[in-house]
């Protein structure tokens, strides 16, 4: 008996391992035994060797760095433009009404649909990729920031006003902190969209980066490289998601702690 959480963790881990083995690894190995060609499913040991080879080679790391640089810059642009606009539109109803038709109609033109136009405008220049990433993140950042500002407790604003705060002070001391949690949630969702949009742009129109790496590997029928590349893309996406979730947890705790005061 004794430690319940640890037992539960052990139990969950064993079930998880069984699940991964039963749903993914076992069918994979069976398919290989049954004679599926390596082009379709490479044998599992080959995947392990490919991981080692790729990390040792001069191919993977530069691709990762290029993709990370692109997504970080594009995402930063989306945040720097989206958050201020969201704050303005959330606070001033007039401005929101003026922009709403534009926001609503562009929201339905998915980022991927911009890829051909971005190629026409920018060729394979970096600006095209940055534009796609920015577009994928911008609307999500704006809409979540607006929701954050709208969700501010009106009583808080009234209380601040009663205590003599001006509009500027209210904005900085009341609205900004209260809008923070929803905005951070928006940033997490927007980053995921930026990352997917970047991979799509690199699949279609790039000569470098992770998306290009797996597309190029496909050209040479290196399925093992494609699969390892997919895993790297997943790990990077999951890592960013995890970091944003940590920030979110902290921001939300800060808010609820403040709420208790």
């Amino acid at each position, binding site marked *: 008996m004794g430690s319940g959480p640890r037992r539960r963790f052990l*139990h*969950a881990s064993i*079930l*998880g*391992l*069984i*699940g*991964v083995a*039963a*749903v*993914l690894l076992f069918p994979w190995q069976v398919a290989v035994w049954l004679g599926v060609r390596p*082009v*379709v499913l490479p044998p599992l040991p080959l995947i392990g060797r490919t991981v080692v080879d790729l990390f040792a080679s001069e191919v993977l790391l530069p691709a990762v760095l290029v993709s990370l640089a692109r997504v970080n810059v594009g995402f930063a642009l989306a945040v720097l433009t989206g958050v201020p606009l969201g704050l303005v539109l959330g606070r001033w109803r007039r401005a929101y009404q003026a922009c709403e038709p534009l926001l609503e*109609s562009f929201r*339905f*033109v*998915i980022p*991927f*649909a*911009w*890829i*051909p*136009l971005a*190629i*026409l*405008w920018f060729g394979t220049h970096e600006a095209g990729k940055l534009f796609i990433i920015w577009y994928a993140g911008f609307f999500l950042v704006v809409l979540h920031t607006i929701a954050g500002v709208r969700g501010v407790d009106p009583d808080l604003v009234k209380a601040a006003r009663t205590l003599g705060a001006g509009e500027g002070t209210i904005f900085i001391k009341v609205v900004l902190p209260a809008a923070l949690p929803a905005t951070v949630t928006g940033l997490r969702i927007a980053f*995921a969209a930026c*990352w*997917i949009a970047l*991979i*799509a742009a690199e*699949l*279609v129109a790039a000569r470098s980066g992770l*998306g290009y790496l*797996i*597309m190029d*590997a*496909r050209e040479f*029928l290196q*399925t093992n490289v*494609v*699969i390892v*590349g*997919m*895993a790297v*893309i*997943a*790990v990077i*996406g*999951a890592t960013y*998601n995890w970091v944003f979730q940590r920030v979110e947890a902290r921001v939300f705790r800060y808010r609820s702690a403040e709420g208790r005061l």
Partner: protein
Amino acid sequence: MSVSSTVASSVIPSPPSVLGALAGQLATGVLVEHVVASLGRSVLGYLAAAAVGVPVGLLMGVSPTARGVLAAPVELLRPVSSIAWIPLAILWFGIGVSSVAFVTFIVCVFLVLLNTLAGALSVDGDLLKAARTLGAGRRVLFQKVVVPSALPGILLGLRVALAGAWGGVVVTEMIASQNGIGYMIHHAQITFQPGLVIGGMLVIGLVGYGLNRAFLVLEQRLLPYARA
């Protein structure tokens, strides 16, 4: 003056030239063919994802063992962005319908599954207890309590997945297809027809909007009580 206007029109086509390009494609019937091809693939991948995602999500919702076993593989596969499956899809299925439908399936299946699971887990424990006290068996419990409670989650997943399916089809067609609306705008880009590129983007936006509206209307008609 003339130089600058030529440059401008080659990069940013005028609205009449966009409409002209669209009208041309509409008149020959090519545009409709592309849109129909894209819609067919979306529906194929979408329905397959619903057929897998809803039952598996419900199973994981009612059975802790199933949840324990399936959570790990789902969490392992989910972060692989669906777009990254495109090269593998081409290796598996070649260029064409199967590849596009497969990627669409991947886009949708996790959205449907996880929202269904969330819905199934949100079942009110008191409701379950009350039903059990009144003598409901497992089957009745599932049919009369679990599924109705999970319905808003299922519908949310299906609606989000519908938008995802459309986006997934568009981007996959740019890479792994010889027809469809995604192929059309990609081809228009290669052959330098900016008017048709923007026209195609408009159509993509309109169809996406229409799909979302159609889903909401259907939901309202068929299941007016199931809104979240």
